[in-house]
């Protein structure tokens, strides 16, 4: 299906280049494999994983899920606005997305500090090795997505030309980071071992 955007936006087949999508889906698949590995370890050692999960702060995990979803909303609105040529409002939406990333990072820092204060580190057990590694790699992804949003928002705010691929790529990367977190939240924070 070929679509035409509003105004002077060009006809397009997919947002961003197909190769970029394969990169994003590949990254999401890498995380899915990690989550599968986590669940296999959980089946092998349900006692350790059940105890580890009970030590997590699910309230912060839930709050961070809402923060990232809210980020996805404002980023989607921002991408749409910038592509429609409404750079001022678009940059504000994208900067609101940067704000959501900041809030997410702050809450994650509180969570890490709570663990370290309780003497919990990546070396505590297998559950927390996975917890710190997966949430840490995800946090790096959040920061990369934030950098892209910041770059696009600043160019739009200053009235500079913003390439359509850059705008769409920033949005796609942010939403991919959101999707990875939704899976992480379900697997690590919520769904405990059944045994």
């Amino acid at each position: 299906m070929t679509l035409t955007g509003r105004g002077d936006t060009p006809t397009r087949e997919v947002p961003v280049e197909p190769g970029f999508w394969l990169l994003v889906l590949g990254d999401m698949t890498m995380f899915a494999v990690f989550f599968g590995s986590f669940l296999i370890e959980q089946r092998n050692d349900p006692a350790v994983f059940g105890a580890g999960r009970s030590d997590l702060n699910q309230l912060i995990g839930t709050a961070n899920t809402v923060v990232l979803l809210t980020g996805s909303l404002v980023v989607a609105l921002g991408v749409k606005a910038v592509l429609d040529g409404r750079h001022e409002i678009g940059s504000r939406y994208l900067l609101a997305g940067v704000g959501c990333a900041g809030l997410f990072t702050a809450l994650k820092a509180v969570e890490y500090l709570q663990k370290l204060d309780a003497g919990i580190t990546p070396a505590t057990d297998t559950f927390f090795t996975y917890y710190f590694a997966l949430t840490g790699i995800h946090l790096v992804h959040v920061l990369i997505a934030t950098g892209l949003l910041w770059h696009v928002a600043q160019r739009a705010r200053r009235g500079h030309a913003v390439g359509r691929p850059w705008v769409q790529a920033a949005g796609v990367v942010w939403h991919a980071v959101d999707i990875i977190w939704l899976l992480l939240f379900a697997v690590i924070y919520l769904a405990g071992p059944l045994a």
Partner: protein
Amino acid sequence: MTTSPTRLVTIWAGLVAATVLSWLLGVEHAADDVFSREAVAALLVAITAVKVWYVGLDFMEVRESAPWLRWLFTAWLAATSLTLGTLLVV
């Protein structure tokens, strides 16, 4: 045509409501007296899959993209959800 802002806000509200429901099921064990733990775990995975579907199709604009991308995303989500759900429940 792209997804309208009103639709995006509606989807966001639904995603937040689904997140709260997941929290009630996973942390507060709100349905443990009604359903088996296996059923609750399967429900958590299903809710997550629906959330990912809407983020991908509407926020990422996969819904309005080329068919190959819609199929690839759908296949990825189905494979991921079934694999994680099986490892969790079976």
